[in-house]
């Protein structure tokens, strides 16, 4: 499958907040209630469309465990977007956001779009962090905010797609230099000026869900 742009994402946050489930819901549209700890980085991809343009999202799902923290830092480099996830039923995961954010800001490029996600919104009865608190944190740190449920799929599409829209807008505004791959954005084969006659579709570049 051919695409105009490829955006690289990274999903970060404490262990057990539902990072892998969010990714699975977004790429495979399913929920896995029992999910073992993510060991090391995992990977997913999906095609979306913004403004009539095909955009491939390449998503890196990181391990939340402290042991992997130093490795996660090296993945920030070259990401265009980050989903910073906490669990609305566990306040400690919310309290750790500042550390995550500092880490992300320090090791990523300054234009990286960060979406704050309060996950597990289906567990209203066990809620430990108010929606307003999430909103306030996001406002204070200039992030986009959303509450999602990887279980019911509520807002999951929106979270990934709104982040992409923000990145896309930054490209339109000229904030992101699309020729500099360091920003986590690649121009797809559709855009390639050097070989405009390249047939779109087919080929091995767009194996869905696969590596690229």
């Amino acid at each position, binding site marked *: 499958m051919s695409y105009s742009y490829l955006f690289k994402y990274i999903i970060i946050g404490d262990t057990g907040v539902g990072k892998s489930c969010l990714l699975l819901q977004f790429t495979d549209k399913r929920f896995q209630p029992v999910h073992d700890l993510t*060991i*090391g*980085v995992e990977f997913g991809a999906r095609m979306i469309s913004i403004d009539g343009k095909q955009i491939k999202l390449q998503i890196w799902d990181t*391990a939340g465990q402290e*042991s992997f923290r130093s490795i996660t830092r*090296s*993945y920030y480099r070259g990401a265009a977007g980050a989903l910073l996830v906490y669990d609305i039923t566990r306040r400690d995961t919310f309290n750790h956001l500042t550390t995550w954010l500092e880490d992300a800001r320090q090791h990523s490029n300054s234009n990286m779009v960060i979406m704050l996600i309060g996950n597990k919104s289906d567990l209203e009865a066990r809620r430990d962090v108010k929606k307003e608190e999430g909103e306030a944190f996001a406002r204070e740190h200039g992030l986009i905010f959303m509450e999602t449920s990887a279980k019911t799929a509520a807002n999951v599409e929106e979270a990934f797609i709104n982040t992409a829209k923000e990145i896309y807008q930054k490209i339109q505004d000229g904030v992101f230099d699309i020729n500099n*791959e360091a920003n986590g954005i690649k121009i797809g084969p559709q855009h390639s000026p050097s070989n405009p006659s390249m047939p779109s579709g087919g080929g091995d570049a767009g194996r869905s869900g696969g*590596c690229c």
Partner: protein
Amino acid sequence: MFSKFTSILQHAVDALAPQLSLQEEFVSHWKAVTNFFIDNKGEKLPVEQTSIPVHLEQMLVILQQEDNRCEGGMYGPCLEYLLQHKLLQTLNSLGRTDYPPGMKQIVLSFFTKLLSRIKQPLLAHVNVYRAVQSQIKTCGEVKAGPSEIEEIQFLCTVCAKIKADPYLVNFFLELPKGQSSSSTLPGVKVPVLDEPTSENKLQQEFPLIKTLLTLSHSEDSRVAVKACEGLILCSSLPDPVAAHCLVNSTSFCDDLTQRLIDTYKKLPKEINPLDLENVQAKWGMDVVTKREDEITFTGKRYLISFLSWLDYCDQLSTIANPIVAEALARIIHQKFLVVYFQPDLLQVSETGCITSMAYMTRCLRTVCSQRLLSELVLFLLGDEKKPEVVGQTSDTLRCRLIERCNSVSEEVCLITLQLFDTLLQKDDGHIYDNLVLRNLENRQYFVVKHKDKQSTEVKTIDNDTDDTNKDVKEDVEEFIPQSDNQSEKSSGNVNIDTFSPPNTPQHVKTEVHKIVNSFLTLLPEELKSSYQTVDGGYDMYLKDAHKQYSSVVEACKSWGYPQDLVVPTDNESQPFYEGTFLQMILDKFSHLLDQSYSINLQLTSVISKLALIPHPCLHEFLLDPFLPLKPGIRNLFSIFQKVSNEIKSQYSSEPDLCRKLVTVRKKLMGNSSNMQRLDDESRLEAIIVFEEFCKELSAIVFVKHHAVVTEENKKL
């Protein structure tokens, strides 16, 4: 089919059976597993079609339930059963046979889940770590085997556990076979843990590393990247014994270096510098397909494999235990840089040499870890710390590189200057020491006059203020001649000679605006073209200089630069020599008018990097127009004057020059459609470069001065 049926049956039985205790249930599941091997000899069904996975999963569920109930480090009865009856060892042996087919995967994922789901610390238990250790050894045995994914999950889980509790690593080091300690006499029972003697302690085997290295070569990029993560985790353990074992007893360093060599050898033989500049390569799962290769440029994927592997080594070095980082950097130096890169850098073929220089420059940009960078710098420049002596040339890479800046080939010259430019931006103090400082440090260029002696020795604003602010002063990066501050603070010092003409050697009495003006007035007004166009542009220079200077100061903090100038000893028999690098730079600058625009731009970029450095000697040598120099010795400003005189004598009589300069300037800025080149366009371009560079340097002087003053005011 049949076994599927049994499993369903089993569930039914479970449901009907009277409430069993957790332990009974646990044991019954385990019995069901072991019975399978008694009852089903010779069956060839894959394990998924048997009841084994279900029973094992149930065992995990029970263990987890028990784990959730148990508080404070007490093992529950099921876990106790598992440990006492060495279930893990049994599973291990069952996994080894891979019977029924797929059993190995099932066992691996049992281990993985057990380790990651149970909160109680398990790994330190002898019956766990022994089983885990033998399980580790079964991994990576079959290349591209079907169990790769389960293997890597298991290995990384172990790594993460060790990383979280670093002392655990000792359970995963072992003496090579036949070397175990003396207690293994015949008939004597082997102790629980072979206690290694101190000599062979650092030579123990580290099977975890060995398997991770194997899997890091996997064709499946997901497996490979996780293996690389596992290697980072293990290499970053604080335990020095583990680090030594990793370095001494595994092929870790060689393996990582070999991969650098393999990918290096595949690099395209020619490459567009712009492509090289724009390519991004961070280690991870970015694999460039053949198709992207075709669309962008040939060899891109090889370039990316090389650069991302270099980035991996660099990231690993940043995080790794210093013992590991050190060893890896040395091996990379000896086996890769010297053996492969050096001949390429020194080759005679012009294109080959340009490509390889471009690759080296790109490598320098990628490498940021202290150890690896330092090794790269040692490779390029050597480790010499004593001052260079005139005429003493050696056949080193450093020497050849400096010579290349004067190459007849413009391209070679340009790429070499770019290499130095990149080098001067790297965070390693040895670069500046080796290239310039070692020859300037004793200030042999400086004329010591008796009356000056006092004022240079005591580098303070005035003695009164100094006493009160002694502590403060020590922290201030001071490299501006003292009198700047004097006048600034109008301490009423009578020594300020505001009327001295610019060329009198009154360097210590100079105010910053005089220095700034000395640079700005080098080119006569009628030869300046910037006022004719929109951009006078001085603000931009100030802004840039300010930004760059702040980051340079930050980087230099740890380099221990002196704040004060030393007084050179008069009786030094050694004549002053600026060193091959500065000599080349000064020579090249004196030929400004005869060099191309791009060379001149690159040259000024290198000089401004040097000028930003907060080292008092380098500062005065490059930026002090009033420095009293010994006869026959030149500094940057004297070269500037020479160029300025050359320009004046050649062009001052020429009519119409100003208009020509404006035209050329417009062209350089891309504001002109006129493509026709004038006869002496290159010289006119050089004049424009000169004009701009005088502004740039004066801005640097100003910013450096300003920084010192603000810093002082802040502290007062």
